[in-house]
């Protein structure tokens, strides 16, 4: 029942708001509408990319031969599928990135509020960095970052 109400409200708001995009919303930096220009730019970029892609598709000549459509392997005959498992190192790097990157995420709100938090916050962050370093040293020692072998 409540959802039905929500649905109606949704419908009303949808019609109302989208039609009525006011300058007030558009110029303020704190509302979702401050992203509106970004949407415009996205549309522009999409349009540019799409049109160019289409244009080149029709502009270029088309003389397809089977040899031409084979993957280039320095002139020797193609062997097997390219999509083989890669060295696990790359994968490990990716995973480590994910892990460390989210730790970096935590620095952002801290950095923005850093002056208000003062030394207490700094100490907490120091602890956090210590854990960060623990992980970092651990993976280093484990040889996760060794590419030489």
């Amino acid at each position, binding site marked *: 029942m409540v959802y039905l109400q929500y649905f109606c409200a949704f419908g009303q708001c949808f019609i109302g708001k989208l*039609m*009525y*995009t*006011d*300058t007030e919303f*558009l110029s303020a*930096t*704190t509302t979702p509408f*401050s*992203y509106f*220009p*970004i949407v*415009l*730019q996205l549309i*522009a*970029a999409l349009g*540019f*990319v799409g049109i*160019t*892609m289409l*244009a*080149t*598709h029709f502009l*270029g*000549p*088309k003389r*397809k031969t*089977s040899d031409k*459509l*084979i*993957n*280039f*392997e320095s002139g020797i005959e193609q062997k097997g*599928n*390219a*999509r083989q498992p890669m060295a696990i190192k*790359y994968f490990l*790097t*990716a995973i480590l*990135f994910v892990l*460390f*990157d989210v730790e*970096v995420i935590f*620095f*952002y709100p801290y*950095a923005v*509020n*850093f*002056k208000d938090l003062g*030394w207490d916050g*700094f100490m907490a*962050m*120091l602890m956090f*960095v210590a854990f960060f*370093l623990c992980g*970092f040293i651990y993976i280093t020692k484990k040889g996760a*970052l*060794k*590419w*030489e072998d």
Partner: protein
Amino acid sequence: MTLLSIDWFFIIEKVLLISVVLVLSLVVAMYSTWGERKVAAWIQDRLGPNRAGPMGLLQPLADGGKLFFKEEIIPTNANKFLFILGPSIAMMVACMTSAVIPWGDTLVIAGHPVSLQVADVNIGVLFIFGVVSMGVYGIMIGGWASNNKYSLMASVRAASQIISYELPMGLALIALLMLTGTLSLKEIVEQQRHGLWNVVYQPLGFFIFLICAFAECNRTPFDLPEAENELNGGYHLEYSSMKLGFFLFAEYINMFISSALIATMYFGGYAFPYMDSLGLNPNMVTILGFLALFLKTLFFIFFFMWVRWTIPRFRYDQLMRLGWKVLIPLALANMLITGAVILARQH
């Protein structure tokens, strides 16, 4: 008739601005190729392009036109959809980054204030981060879709490299954020306008950021993904026509945007010394500010090229070691020292 209450002026203004920015990016990118060759020639003591137009100035146009009219080849083994998606994403991302960079202060045209920033969002830095990290998808998808061993290898390398250098980049930025206390690029510039440039406070941070910017743009000495002597041209090996063009363009646009970003964040952006004490018309100041930013950006683009023709390419393990074992600890230390110093000065 609610439609009429839309602020058409605002929209037109933004559309114009966006078009200008995009065209500017493209033109700068195009002429970067020319610049690159000229700089290379200059460094290597040769002439560089000089046939098309005066000083070869029409060379980029010729190159662009050629790309448009080249045959479009999609290998049979490739995944067609992804094959097209890859360069598209790369280009899209390159075009999106410029949205939050403040190209200048506010112009006043016919009583309307016109900001020279497409969108002043309060999380500008995060936006750039978010969009830039999308770039790796373009490369990865492109490399994967080609179904070519070299391409795949290159794209995996590129992905690894880009994400690896994103960490120190983020950490370096955090030190900057501690200083500025805001994520809005506009405010960062405004702060520098009234004080010293951030590079003074953050030399190490700037240095780390710069190195990471090189890596993010796959520029030499970190251009492993397209190391032609190892990988026959890298992730865009199978590409031709404008799809190849997109990859190349994207790289140059990225270089441009990176330079602009470095200038904005560390070198005062559109601010230039004494800009508020010259006593000029505000619009004039704004235009001068834009020019200042443009000059700074051009300098960094030049710097990119200068480095390219000066420093040899890293080996992959050296690259990764530099990223993980040198830059990350350095950036962390930079962050902590910055924090401690700021707090100490506060009291």
